[in-house]
């Protein structure tokens, strides 16, 4: 059962399995476990980035196609929905038209890029995607009357997905981290802490939107897992390993590369559309920026390229760090309270510096990413066990003879 849901590609590491189950629970029950708008936004962004990073990994990790145009497709999806709603009003039909138009545009652009990738060397392809992404960004920024320029567009989502819609009243949640905080810092107040941890969840249309996002992320992830473990996925890995030999085996690598670039673009476009509906505001900075592209790349590498589970781990670690590392630094700088250079180093706004250091350290120590490393450890452990079993077995035999 689990085998077939995960397409036979199990986590293959106990730590990883536990982490994935914890993440699944946290995302599934998130709105009932973590109060506050920031926690809610964090949950949503994790789901968005799981799709985006998994789709990117399909190209980067599984096929070794380096593209910097991923945010362009994300932006096309986000702006597609924003423009659709802007033109046709806040209905599901408008959303549908927006997404459809965005998917068509993305497919056409991805086809052109995919065909180009066959003609040119990998590094040149990467540069071309970079140039195309920049061109797209500047076009969007300049077409002020349509796209709102730097200011972007507000997305007036249908009432059912907005904060005014209240399908459920007075749902109770349990503030997990609040309770754990009490448990560790003031265990003598446990009973009060437990009582205080209950809170009233504002269950609105936005919560519904979150769950739609969560479901899509789950389904798309499982679909990609199936894809990379199918004959098609194997050919992608063959192209990554040795394109020359893949051709000699009769595979038209042209077809596979193009298909992968298009598929990845379509999924990312769809993620962009979901993002627009969840965030209700799109601008160049949150959809098209080059910084965003770097973040996607970081998540992919950090989680582990060529392991789809890495997309989940990478997205969780990164988005949580993005949202909460500032708090940690803030608390730290308050506690230490030093001025000058050291003080400015632990200033909350410098969180990216610290994340960067963590990133460099993790890539240095775990070159195959978090998931890759966990699997290596699990493999070693297994090998040690079999060796040990072997030894006890043979020594038992010796005793018998």
């Amino acid at each position, binding site marked *: 059962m689990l085998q077939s849901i995960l397409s036979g590609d199990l986590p293959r590491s106990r730590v990883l399995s536990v982490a994935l189950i914890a993440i699944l629970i946290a995302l599934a029950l998130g709105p009932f476990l973590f109060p506050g708008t920031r926690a809610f936004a964090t949950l949503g962004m994790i789901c968005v980035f799981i799709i985006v990073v998994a789709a990117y990994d399909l190209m980067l990790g599984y096929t070794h196609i380096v593209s910097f145009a991923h945010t362009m497709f994300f932006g096309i999806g986000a702006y597609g929905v924003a423009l659709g709603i802007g033109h046709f009003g806040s209905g599901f039909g408008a959303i549908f038209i927006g997404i459809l138009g965005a998917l068509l545009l993305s497919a056409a652009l991805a086809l052109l890029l995919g065909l180009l990738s066959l003609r040119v060397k990998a590094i040149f392809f990467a540069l071309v995607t970079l140039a195309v992404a920049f061109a797209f960004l500047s076009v969007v920024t300049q077409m002020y009357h349509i796209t709102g320029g730097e200011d972007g567009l507000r997305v007036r989502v249908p009432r059912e997905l907005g904060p005014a819609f209240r399908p459920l009243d007075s749902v109770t949640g349990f503030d997990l981290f609040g309770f754990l905080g009490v448990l560790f810092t003031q265990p003598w107040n446990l009973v009060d802490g437990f009582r205080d941890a209950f809170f009233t969840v504002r269950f609105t249309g936005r919560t519904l939107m979150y769950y739609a996002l969560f479901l899509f992320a789950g389904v798309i992830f499982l679909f990609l897992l199936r894809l990379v473990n199918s*004959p098609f996925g194997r050919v992608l890995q063959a192209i990554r390993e040795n394109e020359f030999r893949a051709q000699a085996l009769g595979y038209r690598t042209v077809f*596979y590369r193009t298909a992968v670039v298009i598929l990845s673009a379509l999924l990312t476009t769809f993620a962009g559309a979901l993002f627009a509906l969840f965030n209700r505001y799109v601008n160049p900075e949150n959809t098209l920026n080059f910084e965003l592209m770097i973040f996607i790349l970081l998540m992919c590498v950090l989680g582990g390229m060529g392991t789809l589970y890495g997309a989940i781990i990478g997205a969780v670690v990164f988005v949580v760090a993005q949202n909460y590392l500032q708090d940690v630094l803030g608390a730290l700088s308050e506690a230490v309270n030093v001025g000058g250079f050291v003080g400015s180093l632990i200033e909350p706004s410098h969180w990216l510096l610290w994340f960067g250091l963590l990133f460099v350290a993790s890539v240095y120590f775990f070159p195959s990413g978090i998931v890759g490393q966990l699997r290596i450890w699990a493999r070693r452990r297994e090998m040690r066990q079999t060796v040990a079993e072997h030894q006890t077995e043979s020594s038992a035999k010796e005793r018998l003879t």
Partner: protein
Amino acid sequence: MADQQAVLETRSLTIQFGGHVAVDEVSCAFQAGTLTTIIGPNGAGKTTWFNLISGQLTPSSGQVLLAGEDISNLSTEARTDKGLGRAFQLTNLFPNLSALENVRLAVASSYRIGHIFWQRASLRRDIEDRARHYLDFVRLGHRADTPVSYLPHGDQRKLEVALLMALEPHVFMFDEPTAGMSVDEVPVILDLIANLKKQDDKLILLVEHKMDVVRSLSDRIVVLHHGQLVADGEPAEIIASPVVQEAYLGTSAGAPTEEASA
């Protein structure tokens, strides 16, 4: 021989690298059900000729014909599709995939299912069974799950052969399949090739230096020297001919290679 239509033919096939003519006007036709060995000293152009036939290189002039059809302008993939299979002299595999996965890629190609991304379990088992069958064929069954980069050189050579077998082509091209194998591994591969020969519709081309092997296995020997076809005929006749003694055996006796000593 002439009355039967050739499965594979090269007509005045030529390729130049700069001023150097690596394959020079080679015309030769091969019939189904035969095994032809190509010999010649190092740098004679044997591998380059293979590359021209299987499409890794495009000729400067001349044609390659498969069952009468001119395939000179087809891509490697298209030629493989038409039944030309090729194993490489320098091991050329998918290093981070397991041995089984490597063979499975070849099987999936012969099934033409590479584009399928929603796989039925029955099909998966079928392909896996065939892949295991070919691994056992070259005595690598016990290495199925080992990534290729961890395999010793001899095993990689065997896997190279397994990949070609798993493709199930009409034309088999082996480029020094036993080079670098240990003495006890060589007969395994040669037996495989000898068995292939029993299938009447297959055509086998073999580049091989071990003369005792060549003599017993081949129906015909073609000698290349400086890119030119210098002799072509029955094994006994070719090996005895003074041209070969001088051009091939002469030079290889001078150069103490592992092949010469084997």
